[in-house]
C-alpha cells in the first residue's frame, strides 16, 4: 500500500515534505514503507517532493563538487517551491548531502548565486531538514511510550554510521563518538540498547559494489562486535548501512570466517513493530538476513 503512495508523487498531502531518495525507491523500499507506516500510525502526513531527483550521493561528491551541490540544491529549491518549510529525509546519505549543501550555500553568497544559476531556480536556504530520528523526536517521541503495544523486547545495537552524525559542526547530531538519540528511542520502544564500540564507525558506504572487499571488512567488524556483545538486532537509519550489513552478509561471513546471522533492521521497522504494525507492514520480509522477532 505504501508502495503506491510513493509511486504517486502527489499522493499524500501534508505540511511536512518527504524526500525518499533513490535507495528508498529501489533497494531499500522497506525503509520507505516503514517510515510511511510509522508516520501514518502517528497521524503524520508527509508530502513527497514533486519531481525530485537523485542527490548525487558519493559519486557526484567525489567527482564533481559543483555537480554534487547543484543536484542537492535542485531538491532544496523544489521543496521551497512547493511551499515546504520542513522535509524528512530518511536516507542518511541524502540527509547529509542536503544539509551540508544548504549549509555551504548559506555560507557563501557567491556560490549560492552560481548554483542557483545552474539549476535555474532560486533558493532561500531556510529549509528544516530532518532525518528520521529527528522526525520521530519532534512528532512522535512524547506519544511513543503510550502507543507501544508490543514492546520490542530485544537487546539491540544502535548503529548510527558516519553520514548521520558527521560533520558535527553542521549536522549537530546529539554528541560525538557516542550518540544517544537512537538508543533513547529504542529504549522507549521497549528495547535494551547495548554499549558497544562501533556506533559511528563507517560501514564502507558507497563501496558496496566497487570494493566489496572493503565493505566486507568494515561492515564485518561492526557486525561482529554487535553479535559478540549479545545484540539480537542491529538498528540502523541509513539504507547504505542496511544494505552493506545485510546484503553483503555472505562476503562478511567469508571475511570473518564465521557465520553471523544477526538481522539488520531500520529503526522505523522496530518502532513500527512496537506500536503494533505487522512484520509485513514494515517490510521485514525484504531483508536478506532473516529478521524474525517473536
Amino acid at each position: 500500500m505504501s508502495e503506491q503512495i510513493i509511486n504517486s508523487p502527489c499522493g499524500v498531502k501534508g505540511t511536512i515534505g518527504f524526500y525518499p531518495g533513490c535507495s528508498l525507491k529501489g533497494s531499500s523500499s522497506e525503509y520507505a514503507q516503514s517510515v510511511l507506516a510509522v508516520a501514518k500510525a502517528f497521524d503524520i502526513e508527509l508530502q513527497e517532493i514533486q519531481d525530485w531527483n537523485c542527490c548525487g550521493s558519493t559519486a557526484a561528491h567525489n567527482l564533481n563538487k559543483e555537480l554534487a551541490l547543484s543536484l542537492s540544491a535542485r531538491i532544496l529549491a523544489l521543496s521551497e517551491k512547493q511551499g515546504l518549510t520542513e522535509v524528512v529525509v530518511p536516507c542518511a546519505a541524502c540527509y547529509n548531502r542536503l544539509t551540508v549543501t544548504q549549509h555551504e550555500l548559506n555560507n557563501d553568497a557567491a556560490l549560492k548565486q552560481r548554483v542557483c544559476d545552474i539549476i535555474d531556480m532560486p533558493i532561500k536556504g531556510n529549509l528544516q531538514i530532518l532525518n528520521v530520528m529527528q522526525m520521530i523526536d519532534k512528532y512522535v517521541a512524547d506519544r511513543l511510550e503510550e502507543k507501544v503495544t508490543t514492546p520490542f523486547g530485544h537487546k539491540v545495537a544502535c548503529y548510527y554510521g558516519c553520514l548521520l552524525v558527521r560533520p558535527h559542526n553542521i549536522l549537530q547530531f546529539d554528541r560525538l563518538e557516542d550518540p544517544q538519540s537512537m538508543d533513547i528511542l529504542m529504549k522507549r520502544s521497549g528495547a535494551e540498547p547495548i554499549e558497544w564500540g562501533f556506533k559511528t564507525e563507517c560501514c564502507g558506504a558507497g563501496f558496496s559494489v566497487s570494493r566489496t572487499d572493503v565493505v566486507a571488512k568494515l561492515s564485518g567488524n561492526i557486525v561482529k562486535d554487535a553479535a559478540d556483545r549479545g545484540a539480537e538486532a542491529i538498528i540502523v537509519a541509513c539504507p547504505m548501512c542496511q544494505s552493506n550489513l545485510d546484503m553483503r552478509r555472505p562476503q562478511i561471513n567469508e571475511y570473518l570466517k564465521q557465520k553471523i546471522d544477526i538481522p539488520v533492521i531500520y529503526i522505523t521497522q522496530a518502532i513500527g513493530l512496537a506500536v503494533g504494525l505487522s512484520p509485513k507492514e514494515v517490510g521485514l520480509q525484504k531483508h536478506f538476513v532473516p529478521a524474525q522477532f517473536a
Partner: protein
Amino acid sequence: MINNQKSIHELQLHTGVNVNRCYQCGKCTAGCQLADEMDFPPSMVMHMLQTKDEELLQQLLNSKTIWLCISCQNCIERCPMSIDIPHIMDYLREKSAGEHKINRQSRDIVAFHRAFLDSIKYTGRLYEIGLVAGYKARTFHLTQDVVLAPKMYAKGKLPLVPEMIKGTRNIKGIFRKTAP
C-alpha cells in the same frame, strides 16, 4: 625536488585548508578505517603536501588513497587541529580526474561513480539495474553480483523499468553547466 608552492597555494585557495597547521600527530590515520588499504594514509598525505614537493603531489594524484577515502569525516572530527582532510581529498580527486591521473587499481571505483552519474544524467534518478549494467560495461566485471540481482528483484527491491522524472532537461542542463 621541484618546488610546488603554487599548487599548494591553489589547494589552500580552493579548500581553505592550511596544510602547515597539521603537526603530524597521526590521529587521523589511527582512526581512518581505510588507512590500511591506502598507499598513503591521511597523515602522510598531509605531510606530503607540507613538503611542497611537486613529485609527491603527483604521487598523490596518482594514488589509491584519494579514491579510497569515503568521506566518513572521522579524521576531521578527531583531528586536534580540525584539519579538513576530506575536503582535501575531494580537491585531489577532482584534480586527479581532471588531469587524467586516476590510479589504475582505483578505476573500478571511478567507473562505479561514473555509471552512477550516468544514470542520474539520463533519468534524474538512480536506476539500479542500469547502474550495475553500466558499471559492468565499464569494468568488465560481468559476473559480479549475478546472484544478488534476482534475489533483490524477488524481494521487491529492484524496479525493472527506470523511473524518469519530468525535469530531465533541467538535470541535463545541470550536468552540462557543471561539466569540468
